[in-house]
């Protein structure tokens, strides 16, 4: 009987071998896939197992952590001025996952990032609990406060984006109405679930969780004329701010019988670029757009960052300038109507490129990632995105925009002792322009040495305001001024 016994022994060996192979398959080959499966609760348990690292503005954390007893999620996120900072931080909720910086830098904040591996190993050996690292942002607390409070005072929906033109650092990023991510950071069905559901668009038409500064595109209206002016200068169609342009008023759009109207009785006939920008002449810039054509306008818009998503690292929606328009559509698009649509960040990029002598810097909001011991792990270096304008043309455009603030529609943005350039915009929307227009203002401030510390874009959509009251200069410019002032004062 010994021969079959030996065979049975081999058979039993094969059974054990099959188990060993299978074990290697699930614990080695497939281990990472299983460990990080989105339904595997360990992923969130681990995310909340230790206090998350902080998101830092101006050296101070704008986040915190609180222990949550009676749950397998040990800590929950807390926020200081959550509603104000929500467009920057996003949220980290035990029940609803994470978004924006909280999501993108989750590895650093939880301490699970590979770059912290050595440190974690060391901690493990010395018996210390794993800690999360910090995310240091580029934001400016004073500017953010000015932006958020300005929007809040206004009361309508709106957004602000402010940049440091020379580096691309995002200084302010506000959206209103906003939400407090603390309200649903936990895991309780009644409290956190209730707060979450109240914030959803279907339950709240104001859509407070929409990050308007990055994720909403608006027709930029007259603020887009800065791009059109840049295209005219770069093309060489006009080489000076003060030369007469070839601009009939009224102007019938190319290929149509429709006249493009100006708002009110303004001196637009053959106006110089400076005057045309000062009074916001539709006829002048509409004709420039039609004359340059779709391709050249598109080319300039793209150089300013249109038609692509930007990762700050939080994704900003792509702003739109279409590529298949006839001359009259191009004319309308060139004054920021028709299909043209831009995020507030995009229009801040336009202002910042002009202010930075024509050089557009890549916008970013994460300055540095730090280990739990606040050693830097990674630092973001400023990066040039494109050069839409030559320095000479940029300076011509600057002087035009400064005239807008000094003598034109943007006078509400004046700051004593500081040179400010800007452009107002009042964008119509809705079928037959039936809905309330958006009030826009883009601007930059200049220091004594000619460099610019801040460029800003403000948009306000005000359902309640009287229609006539809405104009970029009236609603948006004061907010832009406060933001710029806050940045300048904080540099002093």
């Amino acid at each position, binding site marked *: 009987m010994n*021969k*079959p016994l030996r065979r049975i022994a081999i058979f039993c060996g094969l059974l*054990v071998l099959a*188990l060993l192979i*299978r074990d290697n398959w*699930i614990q080695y080959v497939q281990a990472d896939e299983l460990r990080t499966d989105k339904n595997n609760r360990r992923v969130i348990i681990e995310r909340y197992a230790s206090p998350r690292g902080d998101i830092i503005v101006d050296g101070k954390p704008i986040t915190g952590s609180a222990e949550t007893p009676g749950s397998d999620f040990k800590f929950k996120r807390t926020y200081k001025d959550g509603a104000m900072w929500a467009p920057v931080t996003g949220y980290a909720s035990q029940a609803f996952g994470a978004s924006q910086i909280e999501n993108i830098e989750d590895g650093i904040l939880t301490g699970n990032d590979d770059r912290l591996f050595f440190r974690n190993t060391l901690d493990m050996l010395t018996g210390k609990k794993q800690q999360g690292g910090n995310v240091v942002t580029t934001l400016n607390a004073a500017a953010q406060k000015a932006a958020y409070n300005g929007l809040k005072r206004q009361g309508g929906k709106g957004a602000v984006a402010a940049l440091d033109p020379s580096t691309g650092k995002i200084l302010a990023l506000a959206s209103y109405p906003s939400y407090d991510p603390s309200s649903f950071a936990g895991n309780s069905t009644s409290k956190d679930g209730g707060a979450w559901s109240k914030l959803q668009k279907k339950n709240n038409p104001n859509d407070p969780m929409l990050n308007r500064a990055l994720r909403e595109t608006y027709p930029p209206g007259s603020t887009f004329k800065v791009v059109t002016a840049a295209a005219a200068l770069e093309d060489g169609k006009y080489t000076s701010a003060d030369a007469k342009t070839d601009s009939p008023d009224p102007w019938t759009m190319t290929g149509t019988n429709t006249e493009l109207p100006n708002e009110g009785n303004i001196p637009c006939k053959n106006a110089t670029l400076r005057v045309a920008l000062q009074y916001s002449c539709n006829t002048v810039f509409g004709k420039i757009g039609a004359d340059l054509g779709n391709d050249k306008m598109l080319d300039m818009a793209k150089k300013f960052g249109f038609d692509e998503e930007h990762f700050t690292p939080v994704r900003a929606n792509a702003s739109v300038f279409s590529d298949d328009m006839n001359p009259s559509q191009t004319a309308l698009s060139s004054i920021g109507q028709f299909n043209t649509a831009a995020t507030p960040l995009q229009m801040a990029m336009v202002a910042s490129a002009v202010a930075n002598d024509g050089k557009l810097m890549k916008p970013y909001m994460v300055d540095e990632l730090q280990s739990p011991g606040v050693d830097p792990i990674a630092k973001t270096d400023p990066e040039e995105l494109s050069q839409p304008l030559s320095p000479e043309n940029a300076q011509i455009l600057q002087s035009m925009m400064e005239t807008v603030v000094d003598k034109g529609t943007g006078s509400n943005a004046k700051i004593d002792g500081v040179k400010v350039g800007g452009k107002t915009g009042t964008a119509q929307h809705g079928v037959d322009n039936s809905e309330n227009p958006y009030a826009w203002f883009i601007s930059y401030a200049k220091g004594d040495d000619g460099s610019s510390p801040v460029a800003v874009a403000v948009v306000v959509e005000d359902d309640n305001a009287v229609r006539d009251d809405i104009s970029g200069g009236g609603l948006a410019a004061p907010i832009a001024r406060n933001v710029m002032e806050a940045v300048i004062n904080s540099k002093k």
Partner: protein
Amino acid sequence: MSGTNTSHSPTHHTSTIGAIGAPSRRNTELALLVFAVVIPVFAYANVGLALHDSVPPGLLSYGLGLGLLAGVGHLAVRKFAPYADPLMLPLATLLNGLGLVIIWRLDQSEKLQASKQFVEAAPRQLLYSAMGVALLVVVLIFLKDHRVLQRYTYISMAGALFLLILPLVPGLGANIYGAKIWIKIPGLGTLQPGEFAKIVLAVFFAGYLMVKRDALALASRRFMGLYLPRGRDLGPILVVWAISILILVFETDLGTSLLFFGMFIIMLYVATERTSWIVFGLLMSAVGAVGVASFEPHIQTRVQAWLDPAREFALSRAGVQDGVVHSEQAMQALWAFGSGGTLGTGLGQGNSDLIGFAANSDFILATFGEELGLAGVMAIMLLYGLIVERGVRTALAARDPFGKLLAIGLSGAFALQVFVVAGGVMGLIPLTGMTLPFVAYGGSSVIANWALIGILLRISDTARRPAPAPAANPDAEMTQVVRPS
């Protein structure tokens, strides 16, 4: 070993070597037992430090308890089966000890404590282990020779059938998560008669096959290189097959059914040395399994959960009500293994309690996987492999056919059980409700498996025991070699 045999027959010459040489290896066993106790004690302390930052207060009593069990087992073996295999007792003790540690670790889980069915399992398991070792001692004391069991061949058959039918008795059986393999004893808890039936059946099969093996080995004709058994000899295998199918249908338990049929095929093959029986057996189990699965929704669900655990997880989460119990456990177990990775999270630091129900019994291997990692599970598998290997070696060494058959039946069944449970939890085969021997929480399983080890120890003791030493042989002087000088 009676000293009364004073035969002077020269045929005993050959065995004198054995009488002097055969070491009992009892001290080896003792040394290994020290490791088998110390390792779980360290693991226990490790869990306490990881969970509560302190050495668990029960460490001393746990260590003493496990040490006492090992000591009693060892002394019983030393006294009543001195030539028994030295590895089996330490291996079983180590597995039992590690199982206790993991069960205690899962007792500490707040998530499991919140469940309605929660009971503190570790103290009970320790009690069951004590009962198991007691049964081992009883086996060693009263079963002086395993061949005695041969006398009870047909009583064993009746007993096994009785045990198998018990869970189907109305009012006694309990349906737990779809499988009806438990009986409820009021005030005492539940019992899995199948675990004991395994041993009793092995006794019956061994006794029956030893008598019939010559007849069963007769071939009628050759077909495709196989000697086909005679038609009338197919009777026994058909009966066992039918019983297995009945278990599958009425107790809806694929594991038990597979275990019994597999054990029978292994023993039949060893008894007859006819490969054709294996072919027949495989064909019949395939037909049976597929046939029953075609109409039994419980089995179908298990197969679906095996093929696509993620879908089953989603169905369970969505609370789909379609007449069968959808369980997320298969997926949860896989996540536990995957999250453990190569080295594991460390004892006490995993989240295998997410498995919920039966985390400390049917699914206990997943906790090993998560907290001790690939390395730990491979070690556990090798420990089981070693037990099986010692069992097969016992079968090889046994001098009587009944002992050979019984040893291979028990170790084969043990191997199959480990394969079915571990394979099920790791998603290699569909999941069936069975317990991992020695490790999983469950009184029936622990007690029955200690008894199984007891019988194997007895067979190996008989096998390795030297033949009685002859008295001084007067012939020896005459056989002295006289060297010519």
